[in-house]
């Protein structure tokens, strides 16, 4: 039995969480601070992956990354990167798929901060950048952790989009969820049981750690 699919899943999830954190942080901060009329439109767009069937999302991403679209053609011709049926393509797809799971907890975290506290920082002469990193983020650790962990866990758990965009190339795009699907297909129930139990265990531990941390924060700071 090979653990390669698990390592691939964890690698994919870590990279996705890291990239999404960098993208979602400014986006969530903007959404929490803006009074622009565009806000509901941006919010609806970022929330789309929650309600869209993974096959629809997978189909669009597959089309966009393929040689038939300008984006895919650009990557393949100019940068020499093939996005479809490759690990890079999976990372791109996961970033779309998991975007709301990073943006929404962060945005909620920013919105629940005491506004006067941020204003006190501006009045103290601090820029928005300093305020974000020295005042806002340290005061919303539970939201921060929730965003990162849920994004990570959600990416580990994705199946439909991964299958459509990445297929099942061993060592490249065959992540744990896809591997389990294949084991069931070839009726290798023993392997499927072991893989599934490991997934279940990891998912539970990850979620437990989030809730334990948040409970401790609430007790300590009354957040």
């Amino acid at each position, binding site marked *: 039995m090979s653990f390669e699919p698990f390592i691939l899943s964890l690698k994919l999830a870590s990279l996705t969480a890291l990239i999404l954190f960098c993208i979602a942080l400014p986006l969530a901060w903007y959404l929490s601070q803006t009074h622009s009329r565009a806000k509901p439109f941006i919010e609806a767009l970022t929330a789309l992956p929650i309600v869209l069937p993974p096959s629809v999302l997978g189909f669009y991403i597959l089309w966009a990354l393929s040689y038939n679209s300008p984006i895919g053609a650009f990557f393949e011709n100019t940068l020499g990167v093939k996005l479809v049926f490759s690990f890079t393509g999976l990372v791109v797809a996961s970033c779309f798929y998991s975007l709301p799971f990073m943006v929404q907890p962060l945005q909620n975290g920013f919105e629940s901060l*005491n506004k*006067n*506290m941020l*204003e*006190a*920082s*501006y*009045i*103290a*002469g*601090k*820029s928005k950048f300093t305020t974000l990193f*020295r*005042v806002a983020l*340290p*005061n919303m650790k539970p939201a921060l952790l929730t965003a990162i962990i849920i994004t990570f866990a959600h990416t580990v758990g994705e199946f439909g989009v991964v299958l459509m965009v990445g297929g099942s190339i061993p060592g490249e795009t065959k992540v744990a969820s896809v591997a389990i699907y294949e084991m069931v297909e070839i009726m290798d129930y023993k392997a499927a049981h072991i893989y599934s139990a490991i997934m279940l265990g990891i998912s539970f531990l990850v979620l437990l750690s989030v809730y334990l941390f948040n409970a401790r924060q609430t007790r*300590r*700071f*009354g*957040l």
Partner: protein
Amino acid sequence: MININITKELHGADGVMQLAFHAEIQEGEFVALSGKSGSGKTTLLRILAGLEEAQGDIIVSKKEWLHAGKALPPQQREIGFVFQEYALFDNMTIEENLLFVAKDRELAEKLLEMTELTKMKRRYPHALSGGQKQRVSICRALMKRPKILLLDEPLSALDVTMRTKLQQELLQLHKEFKTTTIMVSHDPSEIYRLASRVIELENGTIINNGKTKDILLKTKGSQKFSFEGELLEIKRVDVIFIAIVAIGQQLVEVVLSKKEAEKFKVGQRVTLSTKAFSPTLS
């Protein structure tokens, strides 16, 4: 010298209201802003701090904070702001709260000492009482050695004893730093103790602007001994009527004739007065 000449449209509970504020404030002055809630006091402070937009001019020692549609951002205005609900940085200790504003250890020590917080400087805000939090907030506001200190009902969430103590400290700090101060307050005794001038707002416009004594002492120059209060109840006892009036924290009974009883309505503001040539204190 601070020149304020601003207007702003406010959308309050009673519809649209025009805030129009024109006043000059001398350097070092302690001005109290009073008026009913919703009269625009807090908005005015926020405009001065640069947290809200407005039309007009704000000139502070010849520097244009607001002029011809251009507003200096809060970061560049030299102000200290004390919020009603403290707004401390919860992730920092008391000392860090002060040093975050300015890396001036000496000033921080001095402020903490003046407000008896030195022993607690390594604690986090969540471990402090309301009065202590507000002291930290006041110290933090002074860390930048601001040109103007803005206080938005700083003591209204505290009990009476703590309020009196903090008023004393505010007075001391004002004497020491001579910072021009504008404080929103509803409490006449607090205003009397701290401010040299009162500006009273109603529906966004100034209805009174003068020395504290002239505005607060309503019986000035008259030999009448009078109090303002709220009429709580009129009850009939045999042939007479008795009115219950609330004056501050105290309830008073006053005998009324039938005619008078018909004239007043329960809930009305009334003035209770009598001729008194030598009122005594005991």
